């Protein structure tokens, strides 16, 4: 029931919010500090829960990057924090509070020493990316720990790119949502980045899409999607793909969230 309520909130939060502002924070932590880092986020989860209630924030998610092997993981981040604000006014409101004092009130059950201990848990090395939500599908699924998403980073190559995503590729995603082979699609524009540590991106990237896969498509569905495409679909996909440079795909799984 709790999950259902959370899912419903997630829908309401995301589907209404086309001008939503999002901050993606990629975090690198040493293997030895991993458990402590997760303890820090557990501590923060409660703060985010209250901040959402107090309308300082619209949502918070913690995702873990998953890699095939150590080689692929080399030089890549370990976690991704997403902070959602319904608009710039809310974000400004959130930034204006004394967050430590606010956190202390929320964790009033902790002694000052224990609070300081939690507050100073390892934060990892972080890079921040400010995004604006341009479009998304409707959320009709259930949000669960371990949910997997693909975060795709793109560089727009021409003025048609955003429209290709919102007017064409979104419709493809919606068809997949209807047949269950996809759960979610969103399209964000990168507004700025604040790079503090090593990054696998060079800063020229312009947009991010997030896909949440559903069930594996059947052979027939795969054929319909690719082999039996009409000429119009072939051309839209060909020219749509040519309007962007696909830079990188990251696989992530959901660890914690608050909406």
């Amino acid at each position: 029931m709790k999950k259902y309520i959370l899912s419903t909130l997630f829908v309401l939060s995301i589907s209404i919010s086309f001008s939503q502002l999002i901050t993606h924070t990629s975090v690198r932590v040493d293997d030895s500090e991993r458990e402590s880092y997760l303890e820090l986020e557990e501590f923060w989860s409660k703060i985010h829960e209250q901040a959402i209630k107090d309308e300082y924030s619209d949502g918070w998610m913690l995702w873990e990057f998953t890699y095939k092997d150590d080689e692929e993981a080399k030089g890549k981040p370990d976690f991704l924090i997403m902070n959602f604000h319904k608009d710039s006014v809310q974000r400004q409101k959130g930034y204006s509070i004394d967050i430590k004092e606010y956190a202390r009130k929320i964790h009033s059950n902790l002694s000052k020493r224990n609070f300081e201990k939690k507050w100073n848990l390892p934060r990892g090395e972080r890079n921040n990316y400010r995004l604006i939500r341009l479009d998304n599908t409707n959320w009709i699924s259930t949000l669960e720990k371990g949910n997997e998403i693909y975060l795709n980073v793109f560089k727009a190559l021409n003025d048609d790119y955003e429209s290709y995503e919102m007017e064409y590729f979104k419709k493809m995603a919606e068809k997949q949502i209807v047949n269950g082979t996809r759960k979610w699609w969103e399209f964000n524009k990168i507004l700025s980045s604040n790079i503090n540590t090593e990054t696998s991106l060079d800063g020229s990237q312009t947009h991010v899409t997030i896909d949440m896969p559903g069930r594996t498509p059947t052979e027939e569905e795969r054929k319909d999607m690719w082999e039996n495409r009409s000429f119009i679909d072939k051309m839209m996909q060909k020219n749509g793909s040519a309007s962007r440079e696909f830079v990188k795909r990251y696989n992530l799984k959901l660890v914690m969230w608050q909406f």
Partner: protein
Amino acid sequence: MKKQILSIIFILSLSFSSSQLISYEAIWVNDGMEEDYLSVEELWSEVKKQAIADDIQDFWVVFKVEKDSTNPESMKKPDYIVFNGFKDDEQRKKQTNWKELAMKVYKGKMSKRKFEKAWEKTPTVRKETRNFLVERLDNTMWSAPEEGQSLDFRFNGFQALNDDYENYEMKFFKDWHEKRTNAGLQAWWEFNKVINRSKNANQEVTHFTLDILKDGASEYEHPDSSLFTHQMLVKNGVASRKRIIGDKMTMLYSHFQQN
């Protein structure tokens, strides 16, 4: 009425003809021999009519090209364009003694001396002829004009710029022509591929279209023109070809197979 009959015959001849071959002759008439040229075509008109009845060819049409005397580029256009249609390559390669056929046609209608004089005029009227042999790739269904409604003939030569061009014509632009036809604005559209040409003919043109528009028809706006997908198909379809030749023509003579 004559136009109406021609129109109906035109349908019958062209609508069943997907592997039809057409020989285009672009003709520049010797200075001061306009009248002579027309008398030659007048003579040939009856011969072609018989040739079509004898299954030597499928159709024959003579067009006069419209020129703008204030535009030097326009004045370089040919004076006339003649279409000789064949139902297939076998028919096209049939050996015909044209003089013998012409003598048979004019036997009893013209004295031998007068015939010889008229016949000998044929090679003297043309300053230059450039030839293309094209294969019909696609066409719409013929939509006859209303009684008294005249037709505009638009003859375009294109250079294909990529491998998608033919499909853009047949799977996208054709639909547009069909919608215009259904709206009562267009009588015909055909799409032909150049398979051979004379050395003096334009070497860049790879395809020709012939649009026959109904005179007095208003501007047509495609019902999907506001949709992004439609706009991108138009943009990329237009970018898949370069217009090399664009002629407006008036039909002077025509004969079609009455099957």
